[in-house]
């Protein structure tokens, strides 16, 4: 009932705040500045992407995206309020203005982009959906899962891909869908399901929550494309640009070798691309409502994309995920940013 009321209130809130929006509301950036804090929609707890640590500080790749936005605006990565959202509440929270930006391992799909009143700004993590099973079942491929019970979280693309995959491969299955990730993984752990499915990155993160993580394996199949990225309401193109370019700034910084450690030195670089990026030449930051040194702020406080990746999901983390598709385009990956010029 509580959940239901939450949804009901969100729905009503939507109707009400929507009316506020139509009356020429100030831009999102102006609101954020006035509030002096960024409201960032985050995961309720997914290691590597968005999770509060023992001290209550939020950590993760998605979290650092929000910190980078805050750094660019306020020169302070801590001016962010993280609002944990479950899969099924996240878009309503964004629509209703509860959060300024949603960075919560959300898949960019056509429906979400075109009919929810939101837009995705890019892809900060290329992912795909996978399965995890108990080792003792002796399963080596997802194709052998006919007749299995599968636990998943509702309100996700996961739920839909699962149905597609089993239908396409003519396999039978039973789906058990839960509203929260905690309940999903607990039910799987309790033996309610043979398999657990979510984004591959999420599989590794959720596996850490099991009583005996080593008793479980991730199957080799990746059954979908899950481009995960931030989204904003689609009535403020200025804000859309700002959020989008924060990501591009971090990619460009990595590509040009600008790091947390060397950014001050790089300010002296004669390379015109670096000069434009760091604002020693031109005033590109101002075109999106920021200061010319916006990228310096981001890199100083958060780092470039590669640094953030390695720290949160790569070798510097428990997940140890390889760069793979998320490598720079120059290194065979998919991460590519338009130039600052």
């Amino acid at each position, binding site marked *: *009932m*509580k*959940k*239901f009321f939450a*949804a*009901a209130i*969100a*729905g*009503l809130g*939507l*109707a009400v705040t*929507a*009316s506020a*929006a*139509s009356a020429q509301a100030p831009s999102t950036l102006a609101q954020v500045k006035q509030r002096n804090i960024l409201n960032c929609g985050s995961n309720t707890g997914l290691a590597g992407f968005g999770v509060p640590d023992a001290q209550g500080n939020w950590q993760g790749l998605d979290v650092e995206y929000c910190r980078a936005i805050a750094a660019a605006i306020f020169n302070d990565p801590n001016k962010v309020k993280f609002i944990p959202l479950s*899969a*099924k509440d996240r*878009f*309503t929270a964004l*629509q209703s203005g509860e959060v300024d930006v949603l960075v919560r391992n959300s898949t960019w799909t056509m*429906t*979400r982009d075109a*009919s*929810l*009143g939101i837009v995705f700004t890019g892809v900060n993590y290329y992912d795909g959906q996978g399965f995890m099973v108990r080792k003792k*079942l002796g399963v080596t491929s997802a194709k*052998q*899962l*006919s*007749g*299995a*019970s599968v636990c998943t979280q*509702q*309100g*996700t693309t996961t*739920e*839909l891909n*699962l*149905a*597609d995959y089993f*239908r396409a491969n003519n396999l*039978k*299955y*039973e*789906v*058990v*869908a*839960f*509203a*929260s990730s905690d*309940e*999903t993984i607990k*039910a799987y752990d*309790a*033996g*309610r399901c*043979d398999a657990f499915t979510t984004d591959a990155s999420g599989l590794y993160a959720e596996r850490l929550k099991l009583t005996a993580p080593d008793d479980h394996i991730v199957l080799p199949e990746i059954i979908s494309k899950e481009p995960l990225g931030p989204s904003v*309401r*689609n*009535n403020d193109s200025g804000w859309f640009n700002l959020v989008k370019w924060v990501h591009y700034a971090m990619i460009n910084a990595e590509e040009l070798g600008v790091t947390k450690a060397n950014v001050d030195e790089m300010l002296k670089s004669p390379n015109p691309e670096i000069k434009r990026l760091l604002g020693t030449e031109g005033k590109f930051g101002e075109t999106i409502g920021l200061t010319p040194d916006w990228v310096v702020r981001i890199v100083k406080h958060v780092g470039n994309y590669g640094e953030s990746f390695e720290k949160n999901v790569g070798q510097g983390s428990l997940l140890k995920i390889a760069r793979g598709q998320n490598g720079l385009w120059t290194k065979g990956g998919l991460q590519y940013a338009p130039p600052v010029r």
Partner: protein
Amino acid sequence: MTTIPTETRQPGKASLLYDPKIRGYAYQILLLAVVGFLVWSAASNAIENLRAQKIASGFGFWHNAAGFDVNQKLIPFSASGSTYGQAFYVGLLNTLLVASIGIVLSTFLGFFVGVARLSSNWVLAKLAMIYVEVIRNLPLLLQLFFWYNAVLKPLPDARNSIALPGSIFLNNRGLIMPNPQFGPAFQAVVVAFFLAAFAAIAFYIWSKRQQERTGKQYPNGLITLGLILGLPLIVYFLAGQPLSFDLPQQGRFNLTGGLQIYPEFVALLIGLTTYTAGFIAEVVRAGILAVSKGQTEAANALGLRAGPTLKLVVIPQAMRVIIPPLTSNYLNLTKNSSLAVAIGYPDLVQVFTGTVLNQTGQAVEVVAITMAVYLTISLVTSLFMNIYNKRMALVER
């Protein structure tokens, strides 16, 4: 001395404006108009703004393909070809299923505990009291988590099912039973059942009349049972046993085939039943205590034993007090069933305001429909309980 002119004492002769009845109507119409206007302007405002925010609106999504699956479904539903509208019905039926069974079970349990609390048996009365206090003072959500774990944890996995007699298996995927497959001739059995039921009712009425007239009692229970079981059974054999069973078979992961009762359903049902029964027990106790002691004493004086006294004298009078709060407990149970979402039981809220809302993004429409459904269920339940209440009230003089 002044005489009051007779006309002024005549009511209704004054202007219509001052007629209290007409005024009453006018106010009500005015209120309705205001409420109507508010609803209309809120709705059109919402539609307008959804459009401005480029959020899809309207009910067109109802016929769009759903693309997801649901495990427990009372009507055919699958990711291939079913629509969001059908998903709505799947969820609604699951809500009605757990609510209606929960209402029946909690009534029985509640009456039992309520009566037990008043029992002269000290242990029984104290046990009932502890039950009521514990159950009523813990949050239902917590109890649901408890039951879900209590159902899941001790049961073996699907490969080591507990085999019960009659090809029934129990494991942490639920209770799997033979699934009855009805042949076409089975219709005759159903018809026979209804005929038997009618016959039983007719006999009951006749025997009551007979008893009133002559005082002779008939074994109503036995005859009813005999009719309702016997007649369909005879027809069943005459029709050549048009019933077979689809037996559960061990598959690689799960038992396949058969009829499955899911652990989520069981946990939710136990949770709702035990919780609501705690409240019903108190309602029943209050109702019984409201019946004056003289009634019991009079019944005893007439030579009635404790059982019949309770059944024939106390409870019928207590019902008057019991029914209104009982109704609100039924409504609570139905609404509480939406906590299903926490343990993955696909009720209306889980399927519709959970998955459908999220996949379509149409929060306003989906939430509005869901609220309308709960309102309707509540109103219909109240209506039936009010009718029942009226009938019970008539018994009193």
